[in-house]
């Protein structure tokens, strides 16, 4: 039971990463590797700030800003520097590793005994692991609502059009470069926030905590899509969060089977690879329909 609650809590907190990447990966059609650096950057920024006695809420906001700056760098490299998207992200990601070491001064900082967003009176009064569930629900609800509203504005529609067909977007006077930069900034801001929350939840920041984050983010997105099929845009955002929770439950099951935490990156990649192959397998073997009959409203 406890493990299940923990998995749901982790799924909710990590869903932020998936939602952030959704903006770039699915809407802008931009595979943004920056997140591998932005996630620990957010963590490093928040944890270092908290360790220096800064209010945890302010520290978390600083993490968001740091993420946005990282997104800005990738955006400028791609739009102004004309560097291919994948490489632009890898360059920023690699550079951030050094930045993170500069920020933290060492490779690991503990928050033991410090005040965090999870150490308030209300949070500590909750049963074990429920703090991350409560925090996750609040943050995901706010972010999802903001995203739904944003995408339904004239600006948001221009943003979607940029990723969907940039030639058309330009011919309608949409500044596509600006859209890509804004998208990368918002996306990485969310990833920075995710890193800050996870670090506070874990009680530490580690220089290597970013390894594999892009796979985790993609897994949330792809699992959501594979599990729920054809959806409207708003439903898709919700599916990312559910996908993130499902992913945590899969990990939980795998760990129960006797794998160790050291195998996590291997398992993550295998899970993602399988999910990405499902549409292919489906057409060859027709295995998906029976699994999905229960969850899909029509067909």
């Amino acid at each position, binding site marked *: 039971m406890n493990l299940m609650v923990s998995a749901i809590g982790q799924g909710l907190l990590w869903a932020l990463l998936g939602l952030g990447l959704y903006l770039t990966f699915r809407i802008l059609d931009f595979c943004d590797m920056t997140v591998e650096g932005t996630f620990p950057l957010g963590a490093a920024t928040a944890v270092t700030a908290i360790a220096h006695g800064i209010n945890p809420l302010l520290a978390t906001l600083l993490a968001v800003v740091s993420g946005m700056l990282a997104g800005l760098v990738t955006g400028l490299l791609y739009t102004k520097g004309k560097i291919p998207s994948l490489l632009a992200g890898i360059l920023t990601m690699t550079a951030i590793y050094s930045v993170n070491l500069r920020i933290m001064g060492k490779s690991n900082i503990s928050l033991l005994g410090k005040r965090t967003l999870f150490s308030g009176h209300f949070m500590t009064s909750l049963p074990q692991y429920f703090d991350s569930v409560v925090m996750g629900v609040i943050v995901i609800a706010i972010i999802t609502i903001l995203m739904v509203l944003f995408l339904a504005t004239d600006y948001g529609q221009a943003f979607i059009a940029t990723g969907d067909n940039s030639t058309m977007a330009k011919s309608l*006077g949409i500044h596509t470069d600006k859209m890509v930069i804004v998208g990368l900034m918002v996306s990485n801001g969310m990833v920075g926030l995710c890193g800050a929350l996870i670090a506070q939840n874990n009680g530490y920041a580690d220089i290597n905590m970013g390894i594999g984050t892009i796979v985790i983010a993609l897994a949330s997105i792809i699992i959501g899509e594979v599990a729920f099929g054809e959806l409207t845009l708003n439903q898709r955002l919700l599916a990312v969060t559910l996908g993130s929770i499902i992913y945590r439950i899969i990990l939980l099951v795998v760990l129960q089977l006797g794998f160790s935490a050291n195998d996590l990156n291997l398992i993550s990649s295998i899970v993602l690879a399988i999910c990405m192959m499902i549409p292919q397998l489906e057409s060859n073997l027709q295995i998906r329909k029976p699994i999905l009959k229960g969850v899909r409203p029509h067909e």
Partner: protein
Amino acid sequence: MNKPILELKDVKTIVNKGTSNETTILKGINLKINEGDFITIVGTNGAGKSTLFNVIGGNLRADFGEIVHNGHDITKTTEEQRTTFLARVFQDPKLGTAPRMTVAENLLLATKRGERRHLTLRKLKENMARFTKLAATMNNGLENRMATATGALSGGQRQALSFLMATLKRPDILLLDEHTAALDPHTSQNLLHATNERITQDHLTALMITHHLEDAIKYGNRLIVLKDGQIKADYQGADKARLTAKDLYEYFES
């Protein structure tokens, strides 16, 4: 009437500058486009028709010469800036619409062509009745597919939608780059007919590239023959009315 809305003065474009492959595509184009002109453009492959559109549209800079819109020099303005007064329809049905967005959403995007887009709610429902009525003017069932993603439309419907999007907010200049070339003959004629009707009714100023000599003669009040980066002929009014496909065909020989 008859005041130039757009003027090209000795426009030249060079590609692969500074390399051994340096080629001049447009070799000094002088063109006065008057308000209300519907100009059809014919020419061989490589004559510079698309380059001409790209120079007017702003996604290619003119290396020499000047482009003047309503008395303002716009030679150095960007593609995005020019969309305030210019709209275009591409040859490839895939280029003109956003495939994952619905027909209505695409139209909504086009209502704000060249304008700043704000963080205000998009107001799709409020515009639905107007969009549906507009779509019905294309006579191809587009009005029944308002909530369909455009990726699921037929090529003809997509091009009709592209055309509607280009004319939804009245442009000073409309560029049609072989916008019916990818369609079957019947669909192509339907769209050309609708195109002509809209341009005539609204007195739009339009340039249309076509490889179909009969269409070039049938539509518009002016016909330009482009050859080897230069304007070889510019038929207007009665001269154009007398033209036959055979006359035009001579330009394509040799």
